[in-house]
């Protein structure tokens, strides 16, 4: 590998990762503020400004968490990973850096536009048109860089990460580009616009973000545990099924209404089948991690990645449950869906991202992690916080759905049903934010080399068994 070009790629990656962490803090803070407003509606009288309104805070925080935190972060760690698993360095480092800056500009513009001017009202696409164009342009640059990871080394490394990377690289420009054309570029009838929104929602969540997470799971878990995936056929079947079914999962967000019923039924079938796909991938992860519990207990990156992998399976099982024909009509407009958002984004993708940063950043920056209690705080606060928030929302959604299905329950009393659970959710989201602050502080301190002693591998304090896990060949 031509090492002289690596720093350019790693600078781009660092910018994306730092931007991602900033986005996570701001996005989670706004989410907390929005939920507090739901609990105390008169809070909006404190600052009677549009940008402080619940209706602005929610889409702004979702945009920031989805594109800013997870999108930037996953692209950042993949920029570190791709040249290493392909053995090919980035050739045009400055162009890559330009793409990174463009991506961050798109995130900042989208966030400020949503907060100041409001959301577009389109599902999964609250940002204005020019932000989508910026995102596509920068992704074309970053994605072209990432295709280096697919290059001539196709046969030399694990196949599954490459396949998922290929899927994600195709899905983002195809999905966002066609959604922009259908929704804002042409005079598309309103009835088709709704289908196009749900289609993009599926592409964004299940064909872009989820495959990016799976790239990291299937590349880093074998590296950290020293084992290869046991059944390539099962992995291939899961990949093909993800590619075929992922785009249908958004249609379950509609119940009755304007979407053709066959599309909704296909969405339900796809959701249930995707649960089996996730269980199949879970079995592969099980084989990778079985008998390595002490290492998982000790190694920060491995523990985050394992939790992320299991949360992946959990999120698709939860999606299948919410899509069941007798559950969906009750739960469709409830906060049970934000519970799925919590599991999918915060537990699956958030943990995979954190684990990848712990594993890969020392490789790119020649830095180390301290043996600090902040690592423990990060793990427990983020995982328990997200799990508690998801549980609270799921329970709240169940009560809300049952109340909505009973015409005898006045809609004005609905908020009182949600209130006790909202307390739990707000507390849990605050807890998550504390964990993320701990992560940010340890990351910044490590980058600035403020710790007197640091090791390339992040470990929790007071491990019971000392058994080194090699990340050596990631350095090559």
């Amino acid at each position: 590998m031509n090492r002289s070009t690596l720093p350019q790629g790693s600078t781009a990656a660092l910018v994306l990762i730092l931007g991602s962490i900033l986005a996570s803090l701001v996005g989670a803070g706004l989410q907390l503020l929005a939920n507090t407003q739901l609990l105390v509606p008169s809070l909006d009288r404190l600052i009677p400004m549009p940008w402080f309104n619940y209706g602005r805070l929610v889409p702004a925080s979702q945009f920031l968490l989805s594109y800013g935190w997870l999108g930037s972060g996953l692209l950042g760690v993949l920029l570190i990973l791709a040249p290493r698993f392909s053995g090919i360095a980035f050739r045009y480092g400055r162009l890559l850096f330009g793409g990174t800056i463009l991506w961050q500009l798109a995130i900042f513009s989208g966030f400020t536009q949503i907060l100041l001017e409001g959301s577009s009202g389109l599902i999964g696409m609250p940002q204005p048109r020019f932000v989508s164009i910026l995102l596509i342009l920068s992704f074309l640059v970053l994605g072209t860089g990432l295709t280096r990871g697919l290059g001539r080394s196709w046969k030399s490394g694990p196949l599954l990460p490459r396949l998922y990377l290929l899927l994600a690289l195709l899905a983002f420009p195809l999905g966002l580009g066609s959604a922009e054309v259908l929704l804002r570029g042409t005079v598309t009838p309103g009835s088709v616009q709704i289908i196009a929104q749900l289609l993009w929602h599926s592409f964004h969540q299940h064909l872009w973000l989820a495959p990016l997470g799976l790239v990291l799971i299937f590349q880093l878990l074998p590296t950290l545990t020293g084992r290869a995936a046991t059944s390539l056929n099962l992995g291939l079947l899961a990949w093909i099924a993800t590619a075929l079914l992922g785009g249908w999962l958004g249609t379950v967000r509609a119940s009755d209404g304007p979407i053709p019923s066959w599309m909704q039924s296909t969405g339900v079938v796809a959701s249930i089948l995707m649960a089996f796909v996730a269980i199949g991938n879970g079995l592969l992860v099980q084989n990778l991690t079985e008998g390595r519990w002490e290492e998982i207990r000790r190694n920060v990156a491995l523990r985050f990645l394992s939790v992320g992998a299991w949360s992946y399976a959990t999120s698709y099982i939860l999606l299948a449950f919410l899509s069941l024909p007798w559950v969906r009509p009750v739960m469709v407009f409830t906060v049970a869906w934000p519970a799925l958002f919590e599991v999918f984004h915060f537990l699956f993708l958030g943990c995979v991202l954190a684990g990848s940063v712990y594993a890969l950043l020392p490789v790119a920056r020649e830095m180390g992690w301290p043996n600090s209690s902040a690592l423990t705080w990060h793990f427990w606060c983020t995982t328990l916080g997200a799990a508690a928030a998801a549980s609270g929302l799921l329970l709240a959604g169940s009560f809300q759905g049952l109340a909505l299905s009973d015409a005898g329950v006045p809609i004005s009393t609905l908020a009182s049903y949600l209130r006790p659970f909202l307390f739990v959710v707000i507390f849990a989201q605050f807890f998550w934010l504390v964990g993320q602050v701990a992560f940010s502080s340890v990351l910044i301190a490590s980058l600035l080399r403020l710790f007197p002693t640091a090791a390339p591998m992040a470990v929790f304090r007071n491990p019971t068994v000392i058994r080194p896990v090699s990340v050596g060949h990631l350095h090559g």
Partner: protein
Amino acid sequence: MKPTRALAIALGALLLTWVAQAAVGYWQVGRLEPVLNEETNLTVPPVPSGLAHTGARVFASQGCLECHSLSARGPKDSADLTRGWGQRRSVARDYLFRDPAMIGTARIGPDLSNIGARMPEGDKLMQHLYDPRLIKKTSTCPTHPWLFATKPAGPKAEPDALQVSPDGWHQLIPTYQARALVAYLQSLNANYALPEAPLK
């Protein structure tokens, strides 16, 4: 697996999904046309006014969709019609002239797909926008004071001033955005029968 085969499978799967939903969806519901209501001799769904069209964008920008859906469901799966949120379920033809077309994903508040029929009075809608607690004390809907201009109350009230005053000395004049939003809400009236969705 060869890279070219992987590329063909991935691209094929994505295109198949896209075509099956967007193209077949267009073929199935995108070519729907308005139908003639023989009682009124007007076509339905009605084409919204320019002001209502602007109001749809104000509705989206204020984030109303974070709490309100715009899709009433049939009696089989929900209590929407029993609650009085509509006289029939929403169908694809209802969204023919909506741009942006929105259905919403949350119901912290009531469904608004038929709010124009349920609350046709513009004054009441304006008051609700300014401060929902003026209409219902327990409402959790946020206030939108920025949609109203405050002017000193003269001897004669402005013709479009709200019936309420923030302090007794000032009057509240709806801005263009507030007028557009109310026009949009009033346009959400689905009290007409369609061949695929007769009134209950």
